[in-house]
Every structure is written in C-alpha cells, then in structure tokens.
C-alpha cells in the first residue's frame, strides 16, 4: 500500500541536463526528489522536477577549490536527508551537512587514507556510521560524532574498489579488491575478515547487496562478468553469471524485480544494461543515451523499478524511463543452425515460423525418399507472470542423416583423390579430370572439364594439331565424344518443348549476338526445372549437403542444362553442332553405358567448332562465362569443382575473380578436405593456391614434439633446454651447437647433428663424430 502511493507520486519522462564537467558518481536522497552529482570539477545538487532537472545547490565553493572537492564517489545518507559523504581522489573522506547556514557545507574532513578513496558508504540504518575503502588497501569505519575513525580494516591485499553495507545484516559489510577478491567483514571485528573468496580474475570494481535476498551479492569486474553469489550457505556459491560486453564499473539491483540488475561499463561501452540474471545472454533492456562512458547509475527510488538516473563522462545527467528503454530481445534473431558430428542437422526457429513450413517438410520427406527422419522437439518455458522478458519458444528440429551418409560423399573423396591439378599440360589435366568425373557418374562436371579444355587450349595449334591428334590417336576425340554423348543424353532426357524453347532462344540470340541476356535467359529456364523437381523444401533446408548426391543421381536432367548452354554459347556461329545435337539423341539414347561412339560425329563437331572459333576468339573471350560457371558451382555447394577448375586454369582465370571470393572457396574446400581427412589433397590444394592467405596455412602448426636426448623425456616447453636435466637437447655432434633445422642421426648409435655437418664428417671419417666408436653410415 505504501509502495503504491509512493510510486504514484513519482512522475516523469526521459530527460537530461548538461553538467559543467564529467561526473564520477551520483546519488539520490531518500525521497527521490534530489540527486547529487560529483566529479573532479563538479559537486552539485539537482532537483528532480516533472519536466526537467533544476540545479538546487553548488557545493563546490571557494575560488580555488582544493582537491578535497575532487570526488571519486558520493553518497547521500538514506536516513538523514541533509547528510552527504564524498570520497576525494586525494584520499580525504568528507562529510557535508546541507543544513549548515553558511555557503560552505563541509562538515567533517577525515584525512586518514594515504591514497585515493574509491568508495564511501553510509550504514543503511545507523545514522552516524560511515565506511570508506581506499586504494591503500584499508577500509575505515567512521563515527561522525568523532574526529577520527573508530576502526580500520586491513584487507591485506591490494586496493579496495568498493565497500557495501549489507541491507539485512546489521554488522556485515562486503569489500571488493583489485586482485579479484571479495571479503566479508563484521564491523565489530576489525582484526580479521569473516570470509574471503576470489570472485573475478582482475579487479572487482563493484558489488551490490540484493535489497531483499539476504545472502545475495552481485559483483562486477574487469573481466566483463557480473556474478551473483549466495552467501547464505556455508560455502559461497556462484549462482548466476552474466557475461557483459566490457568491464563492469557499477552494478545495481533493480528494485522490486528480484532477478534484475543494472550495469554500466568503465570503458568502450557507453550503454546502461538491465539484465535478468536468469537470461544471461541478452540484456533485458538497454539505455543508449550517453555519448561517453557512464560513471554512475542509481535507481531513483528504492521501491520504484521504472526510473533510473545516470551520470556520465560526457557531462550529462539523465533520467531514463523504463518504458523508453530499448529491448534487444525484440531485435534478436532466435534462429539457430548447427551441424552434428555425423552430418545431422539441428535447426531451431521461432515456433510461429516453424509451424507454417511444417507441411512443406512433410512434402520434403517425399522428395527425399529414404532420406531424413524428423525429430521435432519442442521446448516450452513456463511463462512467468512477473517476467517481462519476451517469450520466445523455439522449435528445435533435428534432421538425422542416413547411416550411409558417408557413402553419399564418396564421390567427393574419390574426386578429390583422383583429380589432377598440376604436373601436366593443361589439356591433359582437363582430359584426366573429365575422365574422373565421368567415371564417378558426374556427367556435368565431366562436360565442364571438356569444355574448359576446348576453350582454353593453345590457340596456336587449334585445327591443325587437333586434327593431327585425332588422326594419331583416339584419345582426344574420345573425350570429346563423351561430352557429345552427355549433351545428347541431356537432350534426350529433356522434354521436347524445352528443347525447342532452348533452341529457339539460342537461335534468336545468335542473331542478337547478346551473350548476357542469353545466359540469363537459359539459366532461368534451368532454374525453373530445378524448382519444379525439388519443391520448396529445398530452400528451407538447403544447408543439408547430404541430400545432394542423391539428387544429383536422380535429377540428371536439370544439371545438364548448364554445360549444354555453355557449349552452345561458345560457338555462337556454329549452326552445325546444333544440328548435330538434334540428331544425337538417336545415337546415344540407346547406348547409355557404352563408351564408344561413332567417331564420325564427334569429329565433325570438334573440327568444325574449333576451326570456327580459334582464329577469332582469344581464350579471354570465355572468361566471363567460366567465371559464371565457377560461381554457379560454388553456389551449388560444389566448391571442389570451383577450386579444381581455378587451380587448373591458373592465370587464365585468376584475375577475373574476386580475390576474397577465391579465398573463400579455397577455405571451404580445404575445410571439407580436412574433414574427410584428405590431408594430402588439402596440402596440395594449399600449395597450388595463389592466395596469400591460403598459402600461409601450410606454415601453421608445424610443431614437432621431441624428447630430450639426455634424459629421454619429452621436452615439455618451447626452447632448446630440457627442463629436467638442464642440458641442451639435440646438440650437433660435430659442431656442438643446438640443431634447429634438419637433424640427421645414426640409427645405430643415435648420435647425429646438422645434416651438412654429418655429411661432411662422414666423407672424412667412418666413425661417429661423437667419438663413440660406432661405424656410422650415411647413404
């Protein structure tokens, strides 16, 4: 009842006023009508009116104020409304009495601390008791009726950063220290602390007793954490921990909200956060008004949770209204996605989002026969009436991959192992890789390789040498005939209309000579085919790689549209190939498996096309198309293809593609390779890459673990001295220096040294350089 009336008397809005100087601390009087602001160059009292702050009193008097006015902390007595205390940076503790008739309200001056006083604290119920904590490591308790401190508490450690009287236990106070400790003291026993525990790594800047829960203490430290400790038990227990964004300068429990506390930071972060300690990952509310670090926060009234006052280094004093706070939760994205160890996929999303596509998921199951089983698991949080946190209930779906999922990736492993990326002429590499792709039943890739070979082969010997080759061996034309067959196969499987369309559009394009539009046009078509076959579900779970192989084997048709398109594109002025293709289905459709084709057909295609383009088209001409093709593969998730082509083409294409993109592809491919434990291939890729960032991967983690040659134990740390026997390990037997490069040693007598030294030595002598008499041999 009393609370209610009080709350209703406080009105206001979010408002601020400019101060003359940066504030270090603020404090309110008990009836919440006035606030005192203290800093190095400011010490003022402001009245809190409904529509603004009104300056009431300037306590900083005198022409040249002494350092006693330079305040590190200030506190307004909660019992006696005319009494204030400040902690001065020069080590003085000053009390002020507002009822003094003269301008100077200073009442008492205690100069017992040798160093800066960081904190002063009045006893919540005892009028004359004041506590201070200083940089010199001492806490002092003052009786305001006396001229000197009544007791001194020595923390026996570094600086005291904060002292707080317990709200409930009359005799208890907590002190936090720069070395990370928190001590609990009984005010009657200055000789020894009651309890001590390490709360943080690094300084504990602040602590605050819970206003209602007897044993709860919140601490904030430089390690960016806020921790809540339960002191009521025998052992101090950490019950909550909030990880904030920067070192925590102040922490204050929110009145009337058991689990809420406000924090502000000492550096970098200027915002004030209100946390629900049970939801430590996202702030409950944020006040973002200040332009520099917030130095003081205080809830305006000890029973009103809606008003927060704050002072800042940006020389402003704010009253924040809770209703105006921003709620990060509203902007947060409650979706999550994660792959499991065995290719399972977990996906969590808002229920509202998940309920709609649930049906699509069912359809998806049909699309992937024998594919995934779904385990939707729903987590419900019991709604808590007092908690205003936005209720987010997420649905978690787990997609389990088939047991033979690894078999599904066999193509990847086989391809990775069999592809040749270097060491042969370009044309042969392409051929080889086309073979590989073909044999792994990946016709699209195979065709692509063949296309690449045709596009980028040496322009110097186009028709002649090719023809020559054709005559000499069946090798080259055979490859080409594969591609032919694939094309024809693709065409064969296509439905009639599509082919007609395609050809029509091609023909028109031949007239227009407009490549780009053509490209897009045909791509659109292909895409359409995709969508048609795979349903929307694919969009939802497109991350799921494991299904792709299955798709690929099942839906050959749409994929093949692409190389075909390139093929046609590449020979814009060749009507004959088109003719060929229209005929080819009859040939290859019947013999899907046979490798041999009537050579005549391929001959005609190749000779015609090559003769046509080679004199006129430099390889550069194809770069845009190849680039597009690479991007396409990468987007489809087949970075293997993209990277392999990139490496094989090398300088021919490298400059056309964005460095970052290349790097990204490389990284993805290498990552995949390493997951499949294809170390050799991954190393080869790294070696062959041209990106600086990739190449340096090879130089990472080149650690070699060695044993000491004297005591035969592992060398525990870096360096060349054994920790145990204090001898230099691996000393060269010839020159007696530590060997840091190549070390060679005899397997007979285990002596050795620098490779060159041992080599040289054994040219001269047959005996071991160490003089052990062993007849070493170097081969």
């Amino acid at each position, binding site marked *: 009842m009393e609370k209610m009336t009080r709350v209703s008397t406080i009105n206001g809005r979010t408002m601020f006023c400019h101060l003359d100087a940066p504030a270090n601390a603020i404090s309110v009087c008990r009836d919440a009508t006035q606030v005192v602001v203290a800093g190095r160059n400011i010490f003022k009292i402001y009245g809190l009116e409904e529509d603004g702050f009104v300056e009431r009193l300037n306590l900083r008097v005198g022409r040249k104020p002494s350092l006693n006015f330079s305040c590190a902390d200030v506190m307004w007595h909660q019992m006696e409304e005319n009494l204030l205390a400040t902690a001065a940076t020069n080590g003085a503790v000053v009390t002020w009495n507002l009822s003094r008739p003269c301008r100077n309200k200073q009442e008492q001056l205690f100069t017992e601390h040798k160093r800066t006083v960081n904190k002063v604290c009045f006893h919540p119920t005892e009028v004359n008791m004041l506590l201070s904590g200083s940089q010199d490591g001492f806490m002092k308790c003052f009786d305001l009726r006396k001229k000197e401190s009544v007791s001194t508490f020595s923390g026996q450690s570094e600086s005291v950063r904060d002292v707080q009287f317990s709200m409930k236990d009359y005799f208890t106070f907590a002190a936090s220290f720069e070395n990370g400790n928190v001590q609990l003291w009984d005010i009657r026993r200055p000789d020894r602390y009651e309890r001590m525990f390490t709360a943080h790594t690094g300084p504990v800047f602040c602590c605050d007793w819970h206003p209602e829960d007897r044993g709860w203490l919140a601490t904030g430290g430089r390690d960016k954490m806020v921790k809540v400790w339960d002191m009521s038990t025998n052992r101090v227990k950490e019950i909550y921990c909030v990880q904030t964004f920067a070192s925590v300068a102040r922490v204050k429990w929110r009145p009337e909200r058991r689990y809420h506390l406000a924090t502000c930071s000492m550096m970098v972060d200027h915002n004030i956060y209100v946390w629900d300690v049970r939801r430590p990952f996202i702030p409950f509310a944020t006040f973002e008004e200040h332009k520099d670090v917030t130095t003081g926060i205080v809830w305006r009234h000890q029973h009103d949770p809606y008003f927060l006052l704050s002072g800042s280094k940006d020389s402003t004093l704010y009253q924040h209204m809770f209703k105006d706070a921003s709620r990060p939760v509203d902007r947060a994205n409650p979706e999550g996605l994660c792959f499991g160890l065995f290719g399972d996929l977990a996906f969590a999303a808002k229920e509202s989002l998940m309920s709609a596509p649930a049906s699509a998921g069912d359809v998806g199951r049909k699309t992937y026969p024998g594919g995934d089983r779904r385990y939707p698991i729903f987590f419900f949080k019991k709604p808590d009436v007092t908690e205003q946190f936005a209720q987010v209930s997420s649905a978690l779906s787990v997609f389990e991959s088939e047991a033979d999922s690894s078999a599904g990736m066999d193509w990847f492993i086989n391809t990775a192992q069999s592809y040749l990326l270097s060491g042969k002429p370009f044309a042969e590499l392409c051929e080889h890789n086309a073979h590989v792709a073909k044999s792994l039943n990946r016709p699209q890739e195979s065709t692509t390789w063949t296309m690449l070979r045709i596009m980028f082969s040496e322009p110097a010997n186009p028709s002649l040498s090719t023809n020559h080759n054709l005559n000499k061996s069946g090798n080259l034309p055979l490859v080409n005939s594969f591609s032919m067959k694939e094309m024809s196969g693709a065409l064969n499987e296509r439905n009639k209309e599509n082919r007609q369309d395609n050809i029509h559009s091609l023909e028109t394009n031949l007239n227009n000579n407009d490549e780009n539009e053509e490209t897009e046009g045909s791509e659109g078509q292909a895409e359409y085919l995709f969508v048609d076959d795979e349903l929307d579900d694919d969009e939802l779970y497109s991350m799921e790689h494991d299904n792709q192989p299955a798709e690929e084997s099942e839906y050959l048709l749409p994929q093949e549209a692409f190389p075909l398109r390139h093929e046609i594109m590449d020979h814009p002025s060749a009507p004959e190939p088109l003719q060929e293709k229209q005929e080819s289905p009859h040939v290859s459709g019947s013999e899907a498996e046979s490798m041999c084709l009537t050579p005549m057909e391929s001959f005609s295609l190749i000779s015609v096309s090559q003769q046509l383009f080679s004199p006129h088209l430099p390889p550069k001409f194809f770069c845009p198309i190849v680039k597009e093709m690479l991007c396409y593969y990468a987007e489809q998730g087949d970075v293997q293809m993209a990277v392999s082509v990139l490496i094989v083409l090398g300088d021919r294409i490298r400059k056309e593609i964005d460095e970052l993109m290349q790097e990204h592809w490389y990284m993805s491919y290498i990552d995949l390779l390493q997951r499949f434990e294809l170390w050799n291939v991954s190393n080869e890729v790294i070696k062959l890459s041209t990106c600086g960032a990739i190449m340096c991967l090879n130089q990472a983690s080149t650690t070699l673990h060695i044993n000491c040659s004297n005591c035969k134990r592992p060398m525990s740390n870096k360096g060349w001295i054994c920790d145990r026997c204090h001898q230099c390990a691996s000393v060269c037997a010839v*020159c007696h220096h530590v060997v840091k490069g190549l070390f060679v040693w005899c397997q007979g007598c285990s002596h050795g040294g620098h490779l060159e030294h041992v080599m040289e030595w054994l040219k001269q002598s047959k005996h071991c350089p160490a003089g052990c008499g062993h007849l070493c041999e170097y081969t």
Partner: protein
Amino acid sequence: MIICTKNMDYRLGSQCQFVQNQVIVNSEKERASLLCMKALANRGRLDKVSQQMASHPQYLESFLRTQHYILYMDGPLPLPYRHYIAIMAAARHHCRYLVSLHSAQFLRVGGDPLWLQGLEAAPARLRHLDHINKVLAHQPWLTARSHIQALLKTGEQCWSLAELVQAVVLLAHCHSLCSFVFGSGSDSDITTTPRVHHGTPPGCCLCDAANGNTALSPPSSGPMEKMLRRRSLDSSCDVGCLREQIHKSQDEIKERKGDRLHSQTLLHSDVEEEEEAMFSTDPSRFVTDPEFGYQEFARREEDHFQVLRVQDYSWEDHGFSLVNRLYSDIGHLLDERFRNVASLPFPHSPDLKRAIWNYIHCIYGIRYDDYDYGEVNRLLERGLKLYIKAVACYPDSSKTPLCPLSWTPVKASEKVHVNLLVMEARLQAELLYALRAITQYMIA
C-alpha cells in the same frame, strides 16, 4: 676442413657456465639461470638486457614473455613490420644496440633489406607511423585524437585499430627498453659481448663459409664483404682481437655504407647471422626531425597541456580494458609486468619506490591526486633524480654521457632495479597517453 678446429671451443656450454657463475648466488637464482639458458639456447645469444635483468628473475620471466608475445606471437601486424617498428622506435633514441638487433631480426623474418636503407625506403604505412613515434618517444602528452584519426583515416595506407594498438604497444615497449639499455650501459659496449652463432641453423654460416658453401651468396664484391667473410672464418678467435678489428674497420664501414647496403640486399639473409654484430646500422636513417626531443613538461603547462590525472585515466581501470580488447591478452601480459616490478623487493622503503615511480610519471605530465610531490624532493637525492631523468628522457648515449652522472648505488642489482622502474613507468606513461588518445578517438 675446419669443422672442429681446436678454436671451436664449446661456446654454448661456456656461456652457459658463465651465466651460471654470474647469477647463481643462491638456490632461488637457479630459476634465473634456467631462464637465461633457455633464452640463450632459443636465440643463440643472451643479450645484455636479459643478463642485466637476471638479477630479478621473476621480472625477467614476464618481460621475456611480453617481448616474445609482441614480436612473434599472434597479432595483426606481419613480423617484418613489427621489427621495423621496433627499429623506428629505437632509432628515436639512437639506440644502436636495439636498432642493430632488430635489423638483423627484421631480415631474418623475411623483411625487405631495402627498407633498412632508411625511413624513406619503407612503405608509406610505416612512414605514417613516424609522427606518433616521435611524439610518444619524447613528448607523449602531445599525443592527440587527431594523430589517431589521421592514421585510421580510410585510404590505401590506413591502419586498422588493432594494428595501431599493436604498433603503439611496440613503440612504447621499445622506447622504454631504450631507457633500460641506456641505463644499464649495454649500448656502449655493444660489440664486446661474446657471441655464439645462432639462428637457424646455428653455426651454419661458419661452416658454410668454411666449406665453400657460400656459393649461395653472390661472389664477394667489396672489401667490406671480404671482411665479413674473414670474420666469419675466424670469429672464434679472441674477443679483444675482434674488437680491434672492428674498430679498424669502423671508418671503412662509414665510408662504404652505401655500398654495404647494396651488398646486403644481394646477400642471403640466412648467411648474415654473423653479421649481426656488424649491424651497426646508423639509427639516424630511421629518424625524421632529429631535433625534436624531450622538453620540460612543467614549462609547457601554460600552453594548456593539461596534466593527465591518473584518477581520471589509469592503467588498471581504463588502459587495460582498452588495450586488451583491441589486442587480446597483451593487457594481462603488461599487467603482469607492472605488478612484477611493483612487487620486486626493494632494499629501501616502499615510499622511495613510489617516489621514483611518481617522479617519472611527473616528468611526463602524469599526476597522482593522492600524492604529495614534496616527498619526491625529500626522498630522492639530487644525483638519483638526475640519473632518473637522464635515463627516462634522454636515453641517447650519443648525446648524454652516462659517466658523469654522479649517482652510484651500493649494489649493481639496485641500479638494475631503478632502471626497471624507469622502464616500466615510462612504458605505462606512453601507453596511457596513447590509449587515452585512442579512447577519445573512439568516443568521437
């Protein structure tokens, strides 16, 4: 074949012995000897600095760790950059010792030898750093937001915040190390330190030269080169002789500086191990505006340079959080250094220690509200004050002669202790100014 001549004494072992003899006084010191041996084995040499610090093993450990971290461990700057920045910083104080040390290391980590011709030859990005280097070295209170802004301004040659922080830490570290080097007198007798061959693989150059493997490097062209070769061959002969030889060739070096650099660029950097001693690269090449030096902070006060009040911007509260955020873990390492130096046992009263520390900070315009500066005059005798000031502000052996400084401590370790205090206080002062400027930049 001179693979194991009798001159090839067991240098490494003997130096270990030397270290042991030097530092093992009681069992506690064993730690120091181990540390030194580790450092020695690691780098093939035990530098003067570490030898001096060995009288305070717990400090030495954290010092080496920090130094290793900023020069070799994770960080945004490439390794040659780091050493080049170190060269720039040391050159501000004409510290030949550090300049030559880092020049060699610069080459060893694959730096472009051309850069060593001077600041003009370095990339523009590094040249931009010159201004803040100059200011931090001599008048750190001038460091302003605008400097940071200019460096971070987007453009081709811009710095990222993380890179800049690492650079600033490096600069401050090297500036303060110059003070230590100067204070301990390591700079003057740079060439007298007995050396072992080191690096990867140690002794290689010696044997390579002996085995005629030097075919790797282009055939020698100048007398300088020949001299180098000769030194490589007989480097194990006695130190005095060596020194004489160097003295003789000193003039020659100066004459042929240009030539020499040219040949350096041709030389394989691996073969240059032995040359390290010869890397008496002239520091002034890396310095612009050599007249810019320390000026009394007090005299400048009317030019509205506000003192930095520790109560408003301190290492513990502010500096640490910022530097650790932008360059992870360095905060903890530096913190450990400051703590270690603060907790070193001091034979006199802790008041004296605080007086020294605060006096150094006072020289650099940093004030403590809670300190009575009358104490400084009361506790520090004039000789000590002069010494501290010389070491902190004018650690330039080419200009300031160390000998006339009248302060003579009772024990050598005491002097080292004072030097350490100067170094750490100076490091913190520079860091505070630089980090405050970065904070101001981030707020604006």
